[in-house]
């Protein structure tokens, strides 16, 4: 286990290096730059700006500089947010996205697995059809439609919940109200995905030999479900969950923009649109590291869910 961990850690270094290199050069090849705007800069000012951010150096040298700084934990200054560093911005955005995405994922896993298992147990019965139709609705209604609709109903017309922002109150003193709609919107799609995946693999597992044997031995449905069926049925769900969780806790642009939440997703998009090279790269590296971490966890969980898949 520990050896596995260190091997993965070692592997992650070249992985991240390649990720950084590809992203770095890809961004530089894309048209536009951080100081391009409709206005014209005085040549001297532009030269000064480029020099201050080392954009005047050859590309490979800039790349080397970036890696060197990164190795020391420095993501560099943000181009867009003039007096802030990328480290600061990630540190301010991540907790928000983590809270939002983490909560949504938690709800989604519990609800999705429960609904999916229920539907599988009642395959091709009314419960199954209703549950899956609900799940499909969650998938068919894109979040950029659902989120404004929920805000209109619950904030504008009913006035029960805030329309946006994180609020100044702490979570328990009313701050939770700001999270209800965004978390719900985020979770809904995920519930639907997880429910569909769970149902699909659960049906397969329920039909396998050993479950039939267990049934024949007169074990109760719940016992069968929790003792024997759930773990193997969760394998595809877990495969999906690794990257999905990493994605969710690093922020959903649509949700953060519509609800005006100060998360990472908004930084990423404004950064990309403004060619804030360091900010985008910083978030990509951060996200990449999380992807690697979560996929590692997923591989560990595989071994636990199905001991034979362990190498």
């Amino acid at each position, binding site marked *: 286990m520990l050896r596995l961990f260190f091997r993965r850690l070692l592997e992650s270094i070249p992985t991240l290096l390649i990720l950084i290199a590809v992203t770095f050069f890809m961004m530089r090849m894309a048209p536009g730059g951080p100081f391009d705007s409709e206005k014209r800069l005085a040549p001297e000012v532009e030269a000064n700006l480029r020099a201050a951010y080392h954009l005047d150096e050859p590309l490979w040298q800039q790349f080397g500089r970036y890696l060197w700084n990164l190795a020391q934990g420095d993501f560099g200054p943000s181009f867009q947010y003039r007096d802030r560093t990328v480290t600061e911005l990630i540190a301010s955005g991540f907790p928000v996205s983590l809270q939002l995405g983490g909560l949504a994922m938690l709800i989604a896993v519990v609800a999705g697995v429960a609904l999916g298992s229920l539907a599988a147990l009642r395959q091709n019965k009314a419960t199954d059809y209703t549950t899956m139709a609900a799940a499909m609705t969650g998938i068919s209604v894109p979040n950029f439609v659902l989120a*404004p609709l929920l805000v209109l109903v619950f904030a504008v017309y009913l006035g029960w919940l805030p329309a946006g922002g994180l609020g100044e109150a702490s979570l328990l003193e009313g701050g939770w109200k700001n999270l209800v709609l965004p978390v719900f919107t985020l979770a809904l799609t995920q519930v639907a995905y997880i429910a569909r995946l769970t149902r699909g693999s659960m049906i397969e597992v329920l039909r396998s030999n050993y479950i039939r044997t267990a049934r024949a031995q007169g074990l109760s449905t719940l016992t069968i479900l929790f003792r024997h069926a759930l773990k193997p049925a969760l394998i595809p769900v877990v495969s999906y969950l690794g990257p999905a969780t990493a994605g969710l806790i690093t922020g959903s642009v649509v949700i953060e923009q519509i609800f005006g939440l100060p998360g990472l997703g908004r930084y990423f998009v404004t950064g990309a649109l403004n060619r804030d090279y360091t900010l985008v790269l910083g978030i990509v590296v951060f996200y990449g590291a999380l992807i690697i971490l979560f996929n590692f966890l997923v591989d560990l969980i595989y071994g636990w869910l199905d001991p034979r898949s362990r190498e």
Partner: protein
Amino acid sequence: MTAPVGAPLSAIAVPEAPRSLWTDAWSTLRQNRAAMAAAVILGALVLLVLVGPSLSDHRYDKPNWDEIAVPPSLTGGHLFGTDSLGRDLFTRTLMGGRLSLLVGVVSTLVSMLIGIAWGATAGFLGGRADRIMMRIVDILYALPFMFLVILLMVLFGRNILLIFVAIGACNWLDMARIVRGQTLGLKQREFIEAARVSGVKPGRIILRHIVPNLLGVVVIYVTLTIPQVILVESFLSFLGLGVQEPQTSWGVMVSDGAMDMENAPWMLVFPAAFLAVTLFCFNYLGDGLRDALDPRDRSGR
């Protein structure tokens, strides 16, 4: 504690099964009413999208300054109303369906094929090959999609094929990971062992024994990929790669319509309804296919 996953029922995946697999699947599928209904509706939808616009009284690209944002009516000539430029929404919804259905199906197939091939190979080979292949997937996950698309356009110009490449290239990752996850467990099973021991080549094992056993999960995930793909297309339009006016797509219509949901709900509701119906159909068809392809369930019905 952990119960061993039993081998699938006897005859299923024995080497020479494939032909009967597909014929069996077809007869099972035909008995599934929900799936058949979905297939019929989908067929009708495709037909409508293909011939509907030419039967309509209105051109999809002709603005009408006197009929801007007209609500739908049965008698007024605009069944679905008009958009903010006075164009007939019924015709536009059908026209939009052409691209969306095409993108939905083709890109999903592309991502499915890459995903299965990649995931099954990685999972089956294991070891170093698996690790390298999966780290590549990790990298692709984290690459900023927007720059990838912009760069593709800089290099290749605007090209309809690029839409499929751009979407396909980014949507196979989940599929690959799911397929690999399944393969890891699958390859330890007795019948795979048996095939291996009897000297069947790895490529053939993957194709003949692994893939058929994956199809259930694959089909489910395919039905989940279609909506993603259709909506991602509207993001490509933002970057100038997707459809360009006066052409349209459901993704673009839904994201435009979302801004009008309060003052002109019909601009959202109709394209969204078409999209939803399509997704439901794919879903039921997918479930039916899943049941039909499930090797364990051959005798079930």
